[in-house]
């Protein structure tokens, strides 16, 4: 008798505690609900906006525009090596200081009346300044809290953040520091804007239920009779954050050049010392809308920035350690990049349709099954954050 021992068992118990209640669909398209999220979450939570390799030396800076805050932010590395952030706005009459995406130099000169600001946001010089009833100290640009973990730069628009970044990341900070991104020097990027609520966009990447259907051709390597949907092997939760462990198919169906190309990529990952690691299969989901996946060959992050109740912008990055230093390395990276891009373009196409069906309001509830537990966890934490914020507002009133 040949007993079949399954190569996969789903981690059902890990998600059972969240229950099975239907989820109000309104949270995924209603402008009033979105306004609550904006104020309760996005305006006062740590938001991932870049990587330290974009600020390689003192005097370098990047600009990031955040639609949900109507804000443009400058993130700069000062002469002292410290990373600081402040609004891209002149304290004279509010003019945006820079239009470029990034740059280097020793100060920011406002093009309107030539107020000149240092890399710490202080006013250094201003023409005919004694005609103002001001001191230069009064004219400092409002700062934005900024901190880093695993090389990733996070900002917090709350003038007095309730948590440090470390507190926000909780027990996952340590694991994230072991990822290749912590040592990354280069990255590739592709972005999109989409008519979809930020949670609909983000949730697509939190469940594997759709793999088989949406990625039937590109994701064939993940399909196995014992785990037809490629569900993860493990879930963990810590505060508003969560992880899953990506299942490795022991018998992947690999096509000829796909196999050759990934073989090359694995060789380079081995040389860079990232092929194996404690979190090489971990997907870290950081509240509200950032995730990074530990897989070394296509080590990518995804950040969803809300724009409105039914529009969002996504940024994918694939991180690399070191420059392309040979033809083979450049080729293997190009393939890894094109391959993951293939999969993500399929996702973006389906997300569009997911939103459209909700807009009429006819669908009152949506449903998450247990292997969509990460999506449920996000919703529960959104509700919790809104409840907390409303309670604080009530106390203040």
């Amino acid at each position: 008798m040949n007993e079949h021992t399954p190569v996969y068992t789903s981690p059902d118990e890990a998600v059972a505690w969240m229950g099975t209640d239907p989820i109000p669909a309104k949270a995924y398209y209603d402008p009033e609900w979105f306004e609550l999220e904006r104020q309760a979450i996005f305006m006062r939570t740590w938001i991932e906006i870049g990587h330290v390799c974009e600020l390689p030396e003192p005097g370098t800076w990047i600009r990031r525009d955040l639609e949900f805050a109507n804000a443009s932010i400058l993130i700069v590395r000062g002469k002292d090596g410290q990373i600081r952030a402040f609004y891209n706005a002149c304290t004279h009459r509010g003019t945006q200081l820079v239009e470029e995406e990034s740059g280097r130099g020793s100060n920011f000169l406002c093009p309107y009346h030539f107020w000149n600001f240092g890399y710490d946001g202080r006013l250094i010089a201003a023409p005919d300044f004694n005609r103002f009833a001001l001191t230069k100290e009064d004219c400092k640009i409002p700062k934005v809290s900024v901190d880093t973990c695993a090389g990733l730069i996070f900002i917090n628009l709350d003038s007095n953040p309730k948590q440090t970044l470390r507190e926000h990341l909780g027990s996952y900070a340590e694991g994230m520091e072991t990822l290749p991104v912590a040592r990354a020097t280069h990255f590739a990027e592709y972005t999109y804007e989409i008519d979809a609520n930020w949670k609909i966009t983000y949730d697509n990447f939190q469940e594997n239920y759709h793999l088989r259907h949406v990625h039937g051709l590109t994701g064939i390597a993940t399909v196995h009779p014992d785990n037809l949907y490629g569900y993860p092997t493990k879930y963990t939760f810590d505060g508003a954050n969560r992880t899953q462990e990506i299942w490795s198919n022991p018998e992947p169906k690999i096509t000829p050049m796909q196999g050759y190309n990934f073989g090359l990529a694995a060789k380079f990952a081995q040389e860079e010392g990232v092929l194996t690691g404690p979190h090489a299969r971990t997907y870290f989901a950081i509240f509200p809308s950032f995730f990074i996946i530990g897989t070394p060959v296509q080590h990518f992050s995804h950040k969803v920035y809300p724009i409105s109740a039914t529009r969002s912008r996504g940024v994918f990055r694939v991180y690399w350690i070191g420059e392309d230093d040979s033809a083979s390395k450049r080729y293997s990276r190009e393939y890894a990049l094109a391959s993951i891009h293939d999969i993500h373009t399929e996702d973006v196409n389906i997300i569009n349709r997911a939103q459209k069906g909700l807009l009429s309001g006819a669908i009152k509830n949506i449903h998450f099954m247990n292997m969509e537990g990460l999506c449920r966890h996000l919703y529960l934490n959104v509700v919790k954050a809104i409840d907390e914020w409303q309670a604080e507002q009530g106390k203040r009133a």
Partner: protein
Amino acid sequence: MNHQQLPDGYEVLEPFVDFWAVHGTAARDAKRTASSEAQRKGFYQIAKDHVPRALAELDQTPLHQFNEKQTNLMNLLLSFAHVVNAVELLGDGEAKHAKFRAAMPFLRSTADLPA
């Protein structure tokens, strides 16, 4: 008239240079989108057997020292990297897939940097 665009030994790949050997990840993705199935299959069938040899040879020269012919070969191989999935995985699904890709442009890639 015989204008050789690749290093010696890659004559069989010469017919693909004009269309496929372009600089930049976004440009190569656009070539994949603009190509016909016959173009992709033809390129894939001929080029696949030469990829390991071509990479091994190019690896002997630092990227920043490539001459024009080596640069063409490199760009051809990089376009091949985009064509592999179109042929091996997507097949008939590639036409539909091409429409999705336009919505998500590549903004940055290490292959776009000077070596």
